[in-house]
């Protein structure tokens, strides 16, 4: 029997993997992808809790998370292309002009 706890556990694992990816990776695009993975893991938890409570509010919140994530990706990738145009690099290490 697949219970909501299964899905919560999986979302925890995916969230941690995404967080480690954000900490480890240097390429800004891949960092973005890892953030997307974390958001997806949260969505899975929302949907699983919605199933557990028998109410649809969790699904609505997951829907909003998807929309906000899409907006975030659009703006983030535009910033990334602007940085790439100026500095010819997509590495997060190279954008260090604000460093003391």
């Amino acid at each position, binding site marked *: *029997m*697949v*219970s*909501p*706890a*299964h899905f*919560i556990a*999986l979302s*925890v*694992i*995916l969230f*941690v*993997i995404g*967080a*480690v990816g954000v*900490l*480890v*990776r*240097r*390429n800004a*695009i*891949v960092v*973005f*992808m*890892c953030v997307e993975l974390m958001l*997806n893991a949260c*969505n*899975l938890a929302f*949907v*699983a809790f*919605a*199933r*557990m*409570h*028998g109410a*649809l*509010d969790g*699904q*609505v919140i*997951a*829907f*909003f998370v*998807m929309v*906000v*994530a*899409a*907006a*975030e*990706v*659009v*703006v983030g*990738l*535009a910033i*990334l*292309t*602007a940085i*790439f*145009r100026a500095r010819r690099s*997509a*590495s997060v290490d190279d954008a260090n002009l604000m460093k003391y």
Partner: protein
Amino acid sequence: MTGTHPLILAGSAAETTRLVAYWILAILSVAAAICMVLARRAVHCAMLLAVVMLSLACYYAMLGAPFLAFVQIIVYTGAVLMLFLFVLMIVGISAADSIIETIRGQRMWAALAGIAMLVLLSLVVGHAVIGPAAPASAKFGNGNVTALANLIFTRYLYPFEIVSALLIIAAIGAMVLAHRERTTPKPTQRELAAHRIASGRPTPLPGPGTYAQHNAADMPALLPDGSLSELSVSPVLSGRPGETPRELPGATAVPPAPQETAGSLAGPASASGGQEAGDR
């Protein structure tokens, strides 16, 4: 997925199917996520992220959220990942990560932080009381879309409107950020032509693969004297790491080809290409 209709999933065979599907997708998605963190090329990361997102869509279907399953496939796998791939095309498909650590021991500390986070979250989730799924209802089956629409347009109306405003702002912001102001006047056709004549090469560059063994984009064209034309391959392709440029004898020196050779070799189909190559 069969899970979209929980009303008819009463038998134990259906439960076993769900369990098997859950475990297959769990192993698949976790493996893809780990490989995504480890893969060096950004394109591979995007493809593995697509695997994770598609398996999450299957999970949504299993959890009685068919609308979200389709939104996941259309918005995430369709739109967001394609956007990632487009930006990868702009930034350069070969943009691989550097292995050099700028902060010493960053990877070890990141792994430690990840393990600590996993332990913390597992403890929190383990202490929480996660009950069994609520009894099946039409909200998690065929009536899912209707029930969601009821919620979105009544209780969540204001968040919905705010989110739509956010989307418009994001679209305009992306346009502003990606817009490049022209700082020099646009060259006219006359100036372009003059520049072309002055550059010493009035003809177009030779296309790749002309007279070569095959017409792949990274195959340099053969000049009439049998030597390779370096100009025929895009510098993006020849500069790609991990891909050795196709080396053939006589690849380095391109001696000026005599005119009569060019004339004799140029076939009727590609006479102009052959003569361009011979003019070099």
